[in-house]
């Protein structure tokens, strides 16, 4: 057994002077990201590299993570979701903006201070084959964080590794083995165990299941859910699959071209999406039920996502927006960049016309059945009434909140 005080060898994670005066109340979020920008420079030049532009991977993102919650970060490839996650772990240095973790601004930290903070935030990677050093044993990989932070003696660390293996559902004797001797799902469990080793507060899970087979995905999701309850973890869960994100998250932030376009409690998001992009995204996800599929109407977005090196003026989504087209192409979308604004309780969206989305046929159609009762508790057509759901005219009657 490990001395429970082992962890306190390391200095208090809250550096003196920063946020220590503040009351450490439950009200303060664990992570606060404020106007975060991460740009990657594009250089060109024959001999001397010239800076000719930036890939605006993340361009002004603001959100917070409450203790113990799971925030899902969802979007298509290149939307900046992984970059955001990595910037929080400080694998990338933010170009602008601030990230505060438990009251400490991470963007100003470096060296030892940063390393100490890293004990409290860990990451799980997408590819279980690439994220484990092939020349280290599973035990070495899981024990490495303890070693780096000087926690425990060799024997204690070995004992802890065995416990961690058991915690993630692997045989404790497997510590001696090398990654190539495990299956994909087992490897991902090792990755989870490594992230747990230091008892972190926050885990950033970057597409943790998308490289796994369908039948293995659920194993890992369940594991993550169990561990959250067990160890009081806060998750930032990054994925492209909205149905998975919705399953595991309390709240969801939808990203498009480096911006958060919608942020809502996860139940609200797919019943009452308020950003036209979210509506399209939801409608694009196939549902494993032919009856529902047959009466859904897909919103097919035109064209591809523009390059993050040259995002469109105004609203970034305006080049592909179905709502804008429906509204007769208002100029405002091209000229004015919509800010993320609170539209309903806890539900933010970055669209000038978010109110027009609410109650629209498109919004009602996304999951092929009428929305569950809106918050205003206005009477709605019976949810079980398939005929009503299939008829756009019927759902159109639903009043806007």
């Amino acid at each position, binding site marked *: 057994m490990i001395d429970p005080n082992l962890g306190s060898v390391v200095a208090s994670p809250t550096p003196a002077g920063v946020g220590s005066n503040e009351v450490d109340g439950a009200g303060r979020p664990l992570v606060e990201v404020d106007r975060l920008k991460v740009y990657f420079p594009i250089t060109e030049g024959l001999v001397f590299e010239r800076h000719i532009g930036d890939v605006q991977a993340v361009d002004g993102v603001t959100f917070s993570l409450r203790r113990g919650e799971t925030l899902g970060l969802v979007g298509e490839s290149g939307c900046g979701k992984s970059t955001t996650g990595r910037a929080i772990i400080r694998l990338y240095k933010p170009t602008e903006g601030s990230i505060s973790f438990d009251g400490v601004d991470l963007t100003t930290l470096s060296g030892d201070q940063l390393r100490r903070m890293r004990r409290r935030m860990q990451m799980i990677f997408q590819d279980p084959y690439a994220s484990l050093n092939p020349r280290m044993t599973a035990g070495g990989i899981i024990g490495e964080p303890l070693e780096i932070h000087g926690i425990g003696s060799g024997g204690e660390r070995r004992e*802890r590794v065995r416990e961690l293996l058991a915690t993630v559902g692997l045989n404790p004797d497997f510590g001696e083995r090398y990654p190539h001797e495990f299956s994909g799902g087992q490897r991902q469990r090792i990755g989870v165990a490594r992230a747990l080793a230091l008892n972190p507060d926050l885990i950033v899970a970057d597409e943790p299941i998308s490289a796994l087979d369908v039948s293995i995905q659920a194993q890992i999701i369940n594991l993550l859910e169990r561990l959250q309850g067990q160890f009081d973890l806060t998750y930032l869960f990054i994925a492209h699959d909205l149905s998975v994100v919705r399953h595991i998250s309390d709240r969801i932030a939808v990203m498009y071209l480096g911006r958060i376009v919608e942020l809502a409690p996860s139940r609200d998001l797919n019943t009452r999406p308020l950003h036209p992009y979210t509506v399209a995204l939801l409608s694009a996800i196939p549902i494993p039920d032919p*009856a529902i599929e047959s009466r859904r109407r897909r919103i097919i977005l035109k064209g591809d996502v523009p390059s993050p090196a040259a995002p469109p003026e105004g609203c970034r989504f305006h080049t592909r927006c179905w709502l804008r087209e429906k509204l007769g192409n208002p100029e405002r979308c091209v000229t004015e960049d919509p800010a993320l604004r609170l539209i309903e309780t806890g539900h933010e969206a970055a669209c000038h016309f978010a109110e027009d989305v609410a109650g629209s046929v498109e919004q009602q159609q996304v999951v092929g059945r009428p929305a569950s009762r809106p918050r205003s508790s206005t009477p709605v057509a019976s949810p079980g009434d398939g005929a009503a759901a299939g008829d756009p005219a019927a759902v159109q009657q639903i009043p806007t909140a």
Partner: protein
Amino acid sequence: MTATAPVPAAVAAPARRRPPDNRLLSVEDLVVRFRTHEGAVHAVNGVSFELERGEALGLVGESGCGKSVTNLAIMRLLPKPAGRIEGGRVVFDGIDLVTLSEADMRDLRGKEIAMIFQDPMTSLNPVLTIEEQMVETIRAHRKASRAEARKRAIELLVMVGIPRPETRLKSYPHQFSGGMRQRVMIAMALALEPKLMIADEPTTALDVTIQAQVLELLRDLAEDRDTSLILITHDLGVVAGMTQRISVMYAGYIVETATTAELFENPSHPYTVGLLHSIPRLDEERAEALLPIEGTPPDQRRAPRGCPFAPRCAWRLEECWTDNPPLAPIDGSGRVITTGPDATHRIACHNPPTAEEAIAGRPLREGFVAAPPPDAVIQELVTRGAEEEPALLDEVVLMGPEGPESTAPSAGGLPIEPDDKP
């Protein structure tokens, strides 16, 4: 339009007897093996299915279940020299493809059966322009001048919704986005109006909004032309809206087949039930707990023995370990309809879940426990598995009657309490 090479119609005329019904393709007891240094890989172990004209069939399964190999075998495009058809017949439009001469088979490919592959990034030749690749497809099967073929290529690009086709023809694949490349692949597949189109995970590499574009295009084009479609995917959601019938594959076997509506209404094989319970659904009122399938798919280097799903199955009986059940109608009747909207719902299972169990995702019968592996199976795993696939053995063994969670030591008493947290 005349064909350049001897068409099967001319060469194989005596062999071609148009079946009386509407059947286009019938695969009978197909067996495919791969010969590797480590012995044979049992990729496809006796797969049979049929397809009508204009019908869309979904082949669903996880990676390595044999769904792609089955279709490469139909096209006779198995990687050489390792992959070999070791048994069975593939009859397409009255012709047995397995015994067809290579020249006749080549003439069929692209013209009567076309394929779309998973990764549009790697499926187009990077050093040839789109024009070169499209024109060569057309000219391989039709006597057409370069200019005629080019005109046809432009029509096709318009059809799949590629803007400015004249200029885009001159482009190289790397100058297109993923979605656009997949459209080019579709255009190329449709160039010769094939009777059958095989789409192998056509949208797996694409983003979800692009996936929606491509799937809609594929469905519309196939419907317009009355082209039969085999859609291979691991995503049950994709097949739900795209196909009329579905066959679920596992470890080189079809374990369940039914019309799409019936399969989702009444999933009856433990594997299908497991798959449906291991994916979260967008339309759920609230997030329900997922019930994963424990363990990993079997090592196909071992000769199949018993039901391939037995080691991961919560419903397994003793006999499942040794006796692989055949695909049979769920209602026990002898009558089998293989195609069309009245196709018989068939499964390969000794102990299928009841409707309630299928909804619950686990056995509900009083006192039922999955049968542990008999000694002979364990012995085989120990002698072979330990040497070649250690992880697999551990998982099978860990998968005791109570499932793995109970075998893993309880994690509740982890000693380091998060006491260093503020």
